[in-house]
């Protein structure tokens, strides 16, 4: 009996899990291992032969202060974007599941920025920052607004966080809306009858019910922020003076401008290890909490 069940399980795994596993192995794991191999070589991008250099690329990466700076910058950007986009998305989710006229239309409209790719949006926002806000600032005579946010290192970082959150929050909003809609109305009503105010209802009734939505959103936000590329490229292109060059853009530039493919692959591997660690931790803790619940 047990062996039959065991066989059934394996049949299920073979039929249902292994196709996905195979596709994933061939499109991600194997190419990624190949990439790790390249990180141990000096390669010009074309040659069919590689000269092995051992750990030299890693040695170089770890000893380059600009790599660490870029990594730190990406960390700061990620914290900013994850917090801002999730807070805004939560507010949007609440607002758009409240008793609001035409809330479906609002949801639909707000999500629209995600229909457009990051590159196009980056260009348009660049114009808004460089010409739009500055014009308003000059007319209203507001000092800090009359110069472009994109030309000052720390303000350019803020601009990047804002634009990223603008797009990301609309994306996360969908998940939060789904989460809030799944909270049974009776539960909220019951709490209200018990005399709980809006804040308490939110914090003690709604929030615990959307925990899985929060997990998904945090995870998505962290991963997407750490690997930000398109908006980084089109909004600031790493500038002014490299102050917003995130790690993915740096990797790309190392490969395709500096033509140091081994070095770029080594940086990519380091980035992967860091982000993988963060997300495995997150998945682990989520799992634990789900078991407790």
């Amino acid at each position, binding site marked *: 009996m047990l062996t039959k069940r065991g066989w059934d*399980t394996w049949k299920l795994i073979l039929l249902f899990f292994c196709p996905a596993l195979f596709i994933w192995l061939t499109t991600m794991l194997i190419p990624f291992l190949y*990439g790790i191999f390249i990180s141990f070589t000096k390669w010009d991008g074309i040659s069919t032969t590689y000269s092995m250099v051992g750990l030299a690329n890693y040695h170089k990466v770890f000893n380059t202060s600009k790599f660490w700076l870029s990594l730190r910058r990406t960390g700061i950007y990620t914290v900013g974007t994850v917090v801002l986009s999730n807070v805004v998305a939560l507010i949007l989710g609440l607002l758009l599941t409240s008793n609001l006229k035409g809330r479906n239309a609002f949801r639909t409209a707000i999500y629209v920025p995600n229909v457009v790719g990051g590159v196009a949006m980056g260009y348009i926002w660049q114009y808004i920052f460089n010409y739009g806000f500055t014009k308003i600032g000059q007319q209203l005579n507001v000092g800090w607004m009359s110069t472009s946010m994109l030309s000052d290192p720390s303000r350019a970082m803020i601009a990047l966080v804002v634009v990223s959150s603008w797009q990301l929050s609309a994306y996360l909003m969908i998940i939060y809306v789904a989460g809030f809609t799944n909270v049974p109305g009776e539960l909220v009503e019951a709490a209200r009858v018990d005399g709980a105010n809006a804040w308490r209802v939110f914090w003690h009734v709604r929030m615990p019910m959307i925990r899985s939505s929060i997990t998904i959103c945090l995870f998505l936000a962290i991963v997407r922020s750490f690997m930000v590329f398109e908006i980084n490229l089109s909004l600031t292109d790493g500038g002014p003076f490299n102050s917003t060059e995130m790690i993915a853009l740096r990797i790309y530039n190392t490969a395709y401008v500096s033509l140091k493919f081994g070095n770029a692959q080594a940086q990519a591997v380091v980035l992967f290890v860091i982000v993988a660690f963060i997300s*495995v931790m997150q998945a682990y803790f989520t799992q634990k909490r789900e078991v407790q619940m």
Partner: protein
Amino acid sequence: MVEKRSTKVLLLVLAIVLTMFYLFPLVLMALNSLKTTGQFTMNPFSLPTRLVAENYPQAFTQMHFLTSLGNTFVLTVSVCLLVAVFGSMAAYVVSRVKNKFVSFFYYFMIASMCAPFQAFMIPLVKLYAARLGFNNSLLPVIYIGTGLNLAFATFLVRGFLNAIPMEIDQAAMIDGCGSIRLFFHIILPMLTPIMVTLLVFVAMGVWNDYLLSSLFLQTQDKRTLPMMIRVFCAQYSNDYAPMMAGLVMSIAPMLIFYLICQKQILAGVVQGSVKG
């Protein structure tokens, strides 16, 4: 009663303001698609002084719109279908089967979502184009696009499946239902809401993809819409006005699809909440 009404108005105003914030850049795009590039550069925020409709026909021909639309469509639909089928099947196993092999690879797959695409884009080309000979073809793009989205799909659907009680499976099993039939006849229909969400997310990503497509599609007749947007970018300057028109045209199909699916998402979410 009065207070409730004022809150309602306040919420409505808030929603309108927020919506404007989200739509403003897109309105700007549509507005500027009706100007000349010169007018755009001088003042991207002004209303067009006279409507320049030529941008649209120009973008239509320059982008080879119908061809690239067709390619984008085939790519997006294929990836969506494959991701939906393989992702939900894998998620079902991950959610229902306690097995070390499965959970090991599941976590591995989750971790791989963090691998920067730049880390394996060159190896991908070496494997699929050089070794397997897929040159200038949509097939590798569809296959790799599926692979890149599978981990996310499994992750998302698994979360939803975990909320569906095991009792349903067990009841069906007792009725003599095999696991394959169980999945396709009972579980899959219940997944509709999360599947629609998943498909919309995947479709958006694939529709807008540039980097992956650009590695495998070389000739103009194979190119997708995001690739064709670049026809307006010269090395040192961009032809913004027709580019804006091209952007409007290339997001329009996705926008329509999204507007249609939006209803289903909401219906699905409500349905799911009733059952849960």
